[in-house]
């Protein structure tokens, strides 16, 4: 077992553990904090997987903007300090479904890839990714820009409420 392996196991444990806390904690804001930890650990995983740019963009977009927005909304919807009761529904059926789907996914992946060893890919730096996006992925990129614009307009319309 090398140092990287231990690092990977630790990162995975942190990610999975904090994800579990997101689902189980009764403090709403703390759920957001645990989500930050989970996303940060995943960003570190991306770094280890040599996806450098994606890792930093993950921190920038997810941790820096998306979760802040979520916390913002939490606070606007009266986030109490301390546990909030009645946060959970019946656990048993959901857990059953979840475990089934999770096990299925894991089995699928493992059988699909049979623990194959991988070659070291070139690191995903900004330059390489940019070339790739603007050569082979231009159409999806443009479609996404339209999606973002639509989301922007939609959010303004929804949050503006009705105007007489």
């Amino acid at each position: 077992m090398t140092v990287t392996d231990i690092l990977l196991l630790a990162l995975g444990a942190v990610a999975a553990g904090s994800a579990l806390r997101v689902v189980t904690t009764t403090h709403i804001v703390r759920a957001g904090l645990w989500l930050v930890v989970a996303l940060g650990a995943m960003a570190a995983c991306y770094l280890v997987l040599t996806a450098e740019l994606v890792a930093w963009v993950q921190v920038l977009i997810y941790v820096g903007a998306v979760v802040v927005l979520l916390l913002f909304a939490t606070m606007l919807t009266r986030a109490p300090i301390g546990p909030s009761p009645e946060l959970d529904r019946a656990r048993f059926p959901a857990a059953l479904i979840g475990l089934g789907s999770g096990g299925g996914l894991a089995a699928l992946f493992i059988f699909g890839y049979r623990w194959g060893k991988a070659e070291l890919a070139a690191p995903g730096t900004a330059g390489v990714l940019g070339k790739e996006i603007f050569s082979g992925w231009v159409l999806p990129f443009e479609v996404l820009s339209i999606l973002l614009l639509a989301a922007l307009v939609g959010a303004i319309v929804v949050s503006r409420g009705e105007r007489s």
Partner: protein
Amino acid sequence: MNLAESPKLEDFGHDVWWIILIKVVGIFAFLVVMTLFTIWYERKVVGRMQHRPGPNRVGPIGLLQSLADGLKLAFKEDIMPKLADKAVFFIAPVISTVCAFTAFSIMPLGGMVSIFGERTPLQLTDLPVAVLLVLACGGLGIYGIVLGGWASGSTYPLLGGLRSAAQMISYEVAMGLSIVAVFMTAGSMSTSEIVAAQANGSQQEIFGSTVTLPGWYFLMLLPSFLIYFISAVGETNRAPFDLPEAESELVGGFHTEYSSLKFALFFLAEYINMVTVSALCTTLFLGGWRAPAPITTWWAGANEGWWPLLWFTVKVLILLFVFVWLRGTLPRLRYDQFMRFGWKVLVPINLVWILLVAGVRVAANADNTVRYAIYGGFAVLLVGIIMFWPAKKQVEPASIAPEKLPEGSFPIPPMDLVVPPSPRTKRIEHAAAAPSATPEQGE
């Protein structure tokens, strides 16, 4: 020795552990000293602007004032509000400070130097996407403020925290966009390479004639520079954008409930953030650690050894002066004005500017027909925008009919209330018209 002194990306990551340790401790010390100095500097400059001496008691010309204040802060009682979320309340200032320190790790303070015989760049580390790291740290720093405000369990801090979250997210967008033009021009996101790209002016062919463009980006990319600086002021919650801690509205904003060392940490983070955005501004737009042009012409060694640290610090201090200057002169914006300014002015201008820069860059690399097509396109676009610019909406005069109020409410003035001219202004006008005449009646 010449400009080959500037470090390449490959020069990073080979340091011995004790060199890294020295650099880390050095940057830590630099930031703490800069914070102490900036607090004093700010008070002194604002004092001068308001015709008073500023701090002048502790140490020579008051230099040790902020150190004394810091010590006093450390010995104060640490108060934990009863309703606070204890863990989060404790973590929040730590998050702020850690993010503030981390962001500085990629600032290039100088070229290659030798520390105890080891040749190493005067910069802790560099990444191919280093500037994104600064932005990411800025994004994480928001958590400190939001969580601090929320965990205090009190209204004013919560409002301050919410304002700050909205403000920093909005201005981070403008800030990120303003840097895009620099990325495109420099062709890199690594700070050391951006500094190296500004070392020499580039030769550009415009309409057949060769023009040498200035090397530093603040001239060539002036809109980016201005937008970056404005959004940096917003991002660091400084006046006139200091809405999260607007004293007259929110007591102290997110840190109202904080005291002692935790408050000191927030304060430290704020000042380090100021230093960091100034340092990033220096790196991106003001040529980084390189000496300004007149010095390099008569002194070739200005960019060698440890001298760059001096130029870098001087540039940062000049930018910090602008921060203080803004604080000393401008009144605080209202929240809606502030948001409108960010989203409706800074971001659109930025987008158009990026389009322009990209067009010019494509034109510079293309052959003549394409180039003239692009320039012609810009001209058509410009004319189109001017022609179809929406006219200002006529403001409808407010109705004179009094508003229907429910029983028992306070009387309010009518919407179209005309205030009679103040007798004072008349007197001033009068005095201005005839400066020699003495005022008729003194009070």
